[in-house]
């Protein structure tokens, strides 16, 4: 380990987990531990630009059973910035098409001595099942509509950077809550850190049952808009919907798209976020996406910091 890496110090003793599977099970101190670590990495790497080789000699594998560009790239870059070797595994180029089960696939990769598996899969719970079957660390990079913990963390990190604390903030998640893993990870993380969470969207995509978890359920963006400190505009997951949950994209945009007129009625310092990829003109108009209140690109940069922090924390256990 070189001098810069040595200066970074050991992993915080508060963190005990070998896997990051969801945010639902994380305590507030654990969440803050990852967020603080991510902030330190961001600073120590000059805004995620330079290398900090704390994972030299380790190998991570991106095991993506579902298409992804930004999350996969972000995890790869994060691992490389930390000096780890990283390999890519795409389901289409694998033996999955030959009928192998995903557990066997993962066991094969582990047998090549991988330290951490970053997994994305269309089926909820797949990372949890793997964590019970493998010795290496498992990081959930999105499992169906269940959770996307690093996305939740990077969203929260971005809010923290701009507002200092989550305590007392009103954060609205807008759009396809039913099919959104990002929504679920945000809900658990935000609630645990003291924010008031609103889920807002068409009634076919926003279950009333969220109220039993202390989440406000709203169908009208215009009604809640003046109260919101942060809007996180979720992408409409056309690919996950078996039947169309609203009559037309046009009507969706009419009711839920964040546009210039709605911006005029929002708090002046509102933060506009989107987990991307964004459907310009559907959930967000270009002038808002590229406008002064948009922090969409900050989210992407913070994604690197969060993933560096997570890779380091989970692979530092048991050493």
């Amino acid at each position, binding site marked *: 380990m070189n001098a810069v890496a040595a200066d970074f110090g050991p992993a915080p003793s508060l963190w005990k987990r070998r896997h990051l599977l969801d945010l639902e099970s994380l305590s507030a101190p654990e969440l803050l531990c990852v967020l603080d670590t991510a902030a330190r990495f961001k600073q120590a790497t000059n805004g995620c630009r330079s290398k900090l080789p704390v994972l030299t000699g380790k190998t991570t594998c991106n095991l993506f059973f579902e298409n992804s560009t930004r999350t996969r790239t972000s995890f790869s870059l994060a691992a490389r910035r930390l000096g780890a070797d990283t390999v890519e595994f795409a389901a289409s180029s694998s033996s999955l098409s030959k009928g192998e*089960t995903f557990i066997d696939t993962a066991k094969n990769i582990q047998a090549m001595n991988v330290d951490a598996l970053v997994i994305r899969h269309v*089926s*909820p719970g797949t990372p949890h099942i793997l964590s019970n079957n493998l010795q290496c660390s498992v990081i959930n990079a999105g499992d169906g509509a269940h959770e996307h913990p690093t996305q939740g963390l990077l969203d929260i990190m971005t809010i923290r950077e701009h507002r200092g604390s989550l305590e007392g903030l009103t954060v609205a998640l807008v759009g396809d809550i039913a099919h959104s*893993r990002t929504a679920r990870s945000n809900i658990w993380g935000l609630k645990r850190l003291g924010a008031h969470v609103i889920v807002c969207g068409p009634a076919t995509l926003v279950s009333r049952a969220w109220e039993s978890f202390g989440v406000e359920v709203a169908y009208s963006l215009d009604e809640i808009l003046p109260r919101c400190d942060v809007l996180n505009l979720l992408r409409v997951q056309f690919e996950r919907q078996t039947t169309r949950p609203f009559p037309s994209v046009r009507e969706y945009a009419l009711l839920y798209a964040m546009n210039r007129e709605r911006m005029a009625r929002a708090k002046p310092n509102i933060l506009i976020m989107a987990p991307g990829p964004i459907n310009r003109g559907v959930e967000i108009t270009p002038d808002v996406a590229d406008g002064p209140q948009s922090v969409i690109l900050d989210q992407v940069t913070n994604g690197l910091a969060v993933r560096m922090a997570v890779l380091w924390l989970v692979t530092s256990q048991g050493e």
Partner: protein
Amino acid sequence: MERLLIQNGRVIDPSQGLDRVADVLVEKGKIAGFDLKVSGDCQIIDASDCIVSPGLIDPHVELREPGCEEDETIETGTAAALAGGFTSIGCLPNSEPPIDTQAGVEFVRQKAARARNVNVYVVGCVSKNREGKELAEMGSLVEAGAVAFSDAPRPIHNTDLLRRAFEYSLMFKRPIFDRPEVLELTHGGVMHEGRTSLVLGLPGIPAAAEELAASRDLRLAEATGGRLHLVNISTTGAVELVRRAKARGVKVTASVGIANLVFTDERLRTFDSHYKVNPPLRSSDHVESLLAGLADGTIDVIASGHAPRAVEKKMRELDQAPFGMNLLEMTLALVNMHLVVPGLLDWPAAIARLSCNPARLLGIPKGTLRPGADADIAIINPQARWTVASRQLKSKSDNAPLCGVELLGRVEHVVVGGVLRF
């Protein structure tokens, strides 16, 4: 052995209101009587501290053969039934090909006879190839020995077909078993739709899907005079519908799978596909309703819900794994632990739902210890503890979620047709 004497057991037979310590004599395959003087050669079983019950009967078990022998065969399935205290089972027609012809019925009956484990009664298909389009040849199926008709675990989706099935089956005085489910609402569903499915991001199976179908089934049974059996109901609304239909005099019976009585949807929080069953494990409010319906007689039958599936099929992602749980050998202990010990049902009431009522449903002269009846007997030690080990299970499939768990209540012996088989 011509004669068998079961001594000192607590003999419980709800069919004749019997619950006392007695010696049961079995002669030439039949129940000879109680507390008779016995002289000469006789095999003796000591049943002290045990319950002596009419053999248990499950009216709808999946045996999977022919075609799905990786899950179960008639031999392994009937061996599992025997080890679970069952002496007669109804075999569902969801094999490949499905049991929709005389030859299919005869195949199952011959295989079962060769296995020499338990009595197997065939539930034939309602529709040809279980496709839900045209009626199967019910008359021929009855001729070959079928005792009921069902497309279960698939629902009878086509309402017109169901109507005709009710009418046609009246000719044979045989019931239609339907697994009530509106497919448009359950399509792609993995688990009960509720708080847990919301958190886990898994597609839900709403309670309304079962209730709508049950309501349709009951109305049609009422209109046609047909006999309806609702297979493994699982929701508050379905229990209430059956309760009201019975009060109106509709010819309906209902069963509940043991898994739906002892587990809730929270079990899926670990994403363990063993708990993926159909009907799905519901939330605790539905479980409460099922228990109440079981206690007041709305629900007639406790079934194992035995649906064996090969481990390689279950080792899939949760949304891709098949539905089903291996339960025949655990059902009795679960009834003891979750229904009898907490005082929800006493033993006579439990045995009525595990033996007498299912016998009536199948229209078979079983589920009784009356002198002259076939000697099908289960000897149960309610105090014995045992631990489920998958390798010791007789069933071919490993999809038993209770492996490693200690259960209370064990089947000690089983007599089928006067022969000590277990």
